[in-house]
């Protein structure tokens, strides 16, 4: 994982930029107990922060948990990740190496028949899966007008309140984007401005093109190989 790039010895250089006011006058020997305490706090913090599925920023972690233990940041992160994996079967993943944003994903293969999400969450995931499939099958990028045209066919309208999803436009353009499931960019030279949708970094980590292709194939009752180019792209991604 990208956050373990540097070795333990270089304490200062791992600090985020702009934190020059922290001058380690003495390299305090952090006791194992103290570190473990911080690790536990971080694990709890991550689990709670993950409830809304909004990615967690390193700045928040530093401010709320690490605080004066900045020099041990990467060690704490590493141990927290290990705890998450060994105890909860989750994984801490950095989805943005520049801005240092993390998400939690499930390390275990999704067992059949397990109800890990509840009603409302499940329905949103259903919609999300449909959208991600559409985007992938259409070449990894679709215009918002095309997406809404497609959702029309499923009785989902941007302007109308949906019985299950409520304000769908908000759900798709704000919630899914903020959770990093979808990414939206503006198309140049369009008036009124149009946007295109692609898979967000969380979608890249939580699912795969192969899985999504399998979903489409299952829905349409066809073999995934039916869509030759998508199939080859999906298999390229996994290898």
């Amino acid at each position: 994982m990208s956050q373990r790039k540097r070795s333990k010895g270089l304490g200062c250089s791992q600090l985020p930029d702009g934190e020059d006011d922290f001058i380690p006058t003495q390299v305090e020997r952090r006791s194992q107990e103290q570190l473990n305490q911080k690790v536990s706090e971080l694990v709890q913090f991550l689990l709670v922060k993950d409830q809304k599925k909004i990615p967690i920023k390193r700045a928040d972690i530093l401010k709320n948990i690490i605080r004066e233990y900045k020099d041990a940041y990467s060690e704490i992160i590493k141990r927290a990740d290990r705890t998450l994996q060994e105890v909860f079967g989750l994984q801490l993943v950095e989805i943005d190496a520049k801005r240092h944003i993390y998400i939690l994903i499930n390390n275990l293969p999704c067992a059949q028949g397990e109800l890990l999400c509840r009603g409302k969450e499940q329905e949103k995931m259903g919609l999300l899966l449909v959208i991600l499939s559409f985007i992938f099958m259409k070449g990894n990028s679709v215009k918002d007008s095309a997406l809404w045209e497609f959702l029309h066919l499923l009785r989902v309208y941007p302007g109308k309140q949906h019985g299950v999803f409520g304000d769908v436009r908000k759900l798709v353009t704000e919630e899914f984007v903020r959770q990093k499931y979808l990414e939206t960019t503006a198309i140049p030279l369009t008036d009124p401005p149009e946007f295109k949708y692609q898979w967000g970094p969380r979608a890249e980590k939580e699912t795969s093109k192969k899985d999504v292709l399998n979903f489409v194939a299952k829905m349409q009752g066809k073999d995934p190989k039916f869509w030759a180019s998508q199939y080859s792209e999906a298999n390229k991604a996994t290898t």
Partner: protein
Amino acid sequence: MSHAGTSGESPPAARRRRARPPQPQERAAREEAAEAAQEEAAEEEAAGERLRQLSIGDGDDDDREHNRMIRSQYRELISTVQQNREAMLNSKSNRLTEALEEANRLFDGVCRAREAALDAHFLVIASNIGKEKASELHSEMSAFDSTAFAEDLLTFMGINRTEVEETDESEDIPGGFLPTGAWQTIGEEAPKYFRRAPTFHYMMGSFKSEPPVPKQRIERQRKASRRKAERAMPAQLKKMEESHQEATEKEVERILRILQTHFEDDPNTPISFFDFVIDPNSFARTVENVFHVSFLTRDGLAKIKLDEDELPIIEPIKPSEGGEEEDSRAGARNQVVISLNQKEWKEIIETFQIREAMITPPYQATEEEMETE
């Protein structure tokens, strides 16, 4: 392919191209895009020529009217193209070509830079669309029929299809009713494809979660209602202001009357204090009775003394006796603290076999008082 030199040549050339045998959709669309590009290129050349020939001048009114019309037609064309962008991108449609041909026709009437500028604007938009159309073809994705996919999804969700008349536009929504659990069905299928971390929740809830907030609201409501009650109170209090003070006094008076009544029946036998105050049914009332009786003794309306058996007895003092008994009264200004707990209370009831209260409880008293009066 060879460039058509002037606009005059392009229609026959186009006709030749269109005369080719019918081909699979993709290639036809590609051709359409290429045609469009061709035509644009041809247009550009022609436009370039004409611009060179343009004379800059106002012209007369007819010209102005003519130009205005051309400008409005161009603007209409531009807005049509922009609004129907999706329709134009549809690989099956020829609408982009039609729009280009329309612009072609309009351009024949253009003789000034102003209209030509509009034409150039249109060209930018049309070429953008053309580029997108081309890029959609360039993608190596195998043809994916989203409509069929949507239909299959609806089927999976359990749609109830009914017969509905279809209109011409294929973009119309097919008929049928989605059952209420439709998205739940997909929702059950979806998690299998995601490695989503289950959200963390405390099983028993955490300490500092929501409950305190409603309590505060309740407290505020209570305080608000208390305040309102207090505001209402003064109005009532003015009417019954004396009631609180009087209540005790009334009680005391009532007890005095009871005492006097009992004493009148039998003036020579003083009443045992315990018999008088104890209410075998209620310890609380017993204490109240003692409290009220203490007022009587304080005000000199009754006296308590010990009899031969050293048991306290109580008897009312007649006001006329006041002068004679002054000494004894002055001497008898003693303070006594009587303590009584429940155990003693029960023992007294047992010992003295007190079956009923001599001092009737206040709310029962009304009936009795009415009887005696």
